[in-house]
């Protein structure tokens, strides 16, 4: 059921928030052993929250359309009193000292947080195979990855465990798992959603956003998420955008650019086919599609794998065995405590990226790598500026392939990094970007990516919602969880 339908049933009291929460936990309990979407559940607290929503609705109070709707949040978002592990041994026992603004906004709107979703450790990865607590599975095929890093948040929606969830997206960590799991996932513009209380990976790229079955569900949650927050110096001082009312299902005259660099040979034909078919649907409904060239995008992966690890190496310096729960035993001195704690409690991918980032920032290499990557970032931004002078949205595949098998890229991190090829540019330029399901490749879902102008979330969601009005790929469910 959609957020709108659930909200209407809750409001007219056909459905109680407590019963909806109970049904959600029953579904989770029945499916979780297959999927491992969650790191932790909070049944008691969620039922209390749902009960208080019921009390308000019984009194006839006018509440947000999100009131009483269950949601799961990625386990890198703080929720006071609950553990926030970032799927790392480093934070295995860390208890959140406060609640992140994005989560607080949704709880203030009455959303019921049922648990915390699995992810790649510190949001570094594209498969959840880097979770210290074991991977999540793709509900379409349990031998395949759900994508990452927000893989648990995506598998939970695809299997119907919860109606909506939150992820975070630094290089594609919402859109890529959304594409792999056949659901919708949205990264708002950088600065639109507060990062306060989100454990930092790469601060100039990180952004929180929602997953849902439909773009309409995403529009409801995004409206609730956005706010200006004085605790995040990059939060934009603007009111939350009106998104649900922007879903007009009209794409007549819409100008769509398709960059040839995002349809290169690295993209599987089985992915290109459904994406071109989706463009034909939009064309038939009145949109105008034109191919463009955005040469700077060929350096997206290079740029990202300098900038993101460089920022991560600084952000993760705080995990040194002094304040955050994990520390090796019997260190002889302070330096040994730092180095061995970090060596022992960080997983391999996190260590690789700390090394990569530290190297790029080190004396002698700073100009050759870090400054060069920041210049390439400028060119990526400028190439979007040029295209958006003549077009409303940029469309591409979300990922180069459909979901791959567990272990397929285990010993080749560089091959795993290719999974971010099409999603990184929107992070580099801070743009809103959506993935919606647009077909299948050998039975596995394929995603269509829609990128919009900075702070023009409304157009991006309008195009995605219109596409879902013309097609029914977003209604398809994996047989075992239908």
């Amino acid at each position, binding site marked *: 059921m959609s957020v709108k339908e659930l909200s209407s049933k809750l409001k007219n009291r056909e459905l109680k928030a407590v019963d909806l929460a109970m049904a959600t936990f029953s579904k989770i309990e029945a499916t979780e052993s297959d999927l491992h979407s969650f790191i932790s559940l909070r049944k008691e607290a969620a039922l209390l929250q749902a009960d208080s929503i019921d009390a308000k609705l019984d009194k006839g109070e006018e509440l947000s359309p999100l009131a009483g709707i269950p949601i799961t949040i990625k386990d890198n978002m703080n929720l006071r009193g609950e553990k926030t592990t970032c799927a790392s041994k480093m934070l295995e026992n860390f208890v959140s000292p406060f609640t992140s603004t994005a989560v607080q906004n949704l709880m203030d709107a009455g959303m019921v947080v049922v648990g915390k979703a699995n992810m790649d450790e510190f949001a570094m990865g594209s498969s959840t195979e880097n979770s210290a607590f074991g991977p999540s599975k793709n509900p379409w095929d349990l031998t395949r990855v759900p994508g990452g890093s927000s893989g648990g948040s995506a598998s939970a929606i695809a299997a119907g465990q919860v109606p909506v969830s939150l992820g975070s997206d630094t290089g594609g960590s919402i859109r890529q798992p959304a594409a792999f799991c056949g659901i919708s996932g949205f990264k708002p513009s950088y600065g639109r959603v507060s990062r306060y209380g989100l454990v930092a990976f790469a601060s100039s790229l990180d952004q929180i956003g929602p997953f849902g079955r439909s773009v309409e569900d995403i529009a409801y949650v995004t409206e609730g998420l956005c706010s200006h927050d004085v605790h995040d110096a990059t939060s934009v001082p603007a009111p939350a955008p009106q998104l649900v009312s922007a879903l007009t299902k009209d794409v007549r005259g819409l100008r769509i650019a398709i960059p040839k660099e995002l349809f290169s040979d690295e993209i599987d034909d089985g992915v290109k086919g459904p994406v071109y078919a989706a463009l034909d649907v939009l064309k038939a409904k009145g949109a105008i599609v034109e191919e463009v060239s955005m040469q700077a995008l060929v350096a997206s992966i290079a740029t990202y794998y*300098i900038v993101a690890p460089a920022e991560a190496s600084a952000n993760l310096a705080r995990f040194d065995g002094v304040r955050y729960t994990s520390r090796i035993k019997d260190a002889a001195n302070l330096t040994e405590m730092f180095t061995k704690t*970090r060596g022992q409690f960080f997983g*391999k991918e996190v260590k690789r990226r700390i090394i*990569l980032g530290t190297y790029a920032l080190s004396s002698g290499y700073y100009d050759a790598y870090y400054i060069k990557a920041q210049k390439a970032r400028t060119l990526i931004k400028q190439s979007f500026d040029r295209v958006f002078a003549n077009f409303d949205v940029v469309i591409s595949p979300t990922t180069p392939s459909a979901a791959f098998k567990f272990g397929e890229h285990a010993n080749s991190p560089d091959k795993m990094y290719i999974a971010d090829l099409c999603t990184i540019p929107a992070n*580099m330029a801070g743009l809103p970007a959506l993935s919606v399901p647009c077909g299948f490749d050998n039975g596995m879902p394929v995603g269509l990516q829609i990128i919009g102008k900075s702070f023009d979330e409304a157009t991006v969601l309008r195009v995605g919602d219109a596409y879902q009005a013309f097609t029914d790929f977003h209604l398809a469910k994996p047989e075992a969880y239908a």
Partner: protein
Amino acid sequence: MSIDKKDLEHVLKLAHLDIPDSEKEEFLPQLQRTFSFMKAMDSLPLEGVEPSAYANNQAQFLREDTPENQADLYMEKNAPDWDQGCFSVPQILSGGES
């Protein structure tokens, strides 16, 4: 230009990271392959381009420096070792002199 064994040892020191030799051997070729991606930047006309640290050009702001959130921030609960209101760490200076 890519990372070699000597660079790796230097970076591990800078990053305060102690990893076993087996991981060094595993990581080095992987890191070298990742650095081979970086050649893609050489095809771009980067000369004279201003670097961007952020996507948006908006000015960042500072909030008023006033105390807030006086709740227990679980410092003691989350500390690996807590002693009389302080984080306790191993000895910093080697002993002997007094």
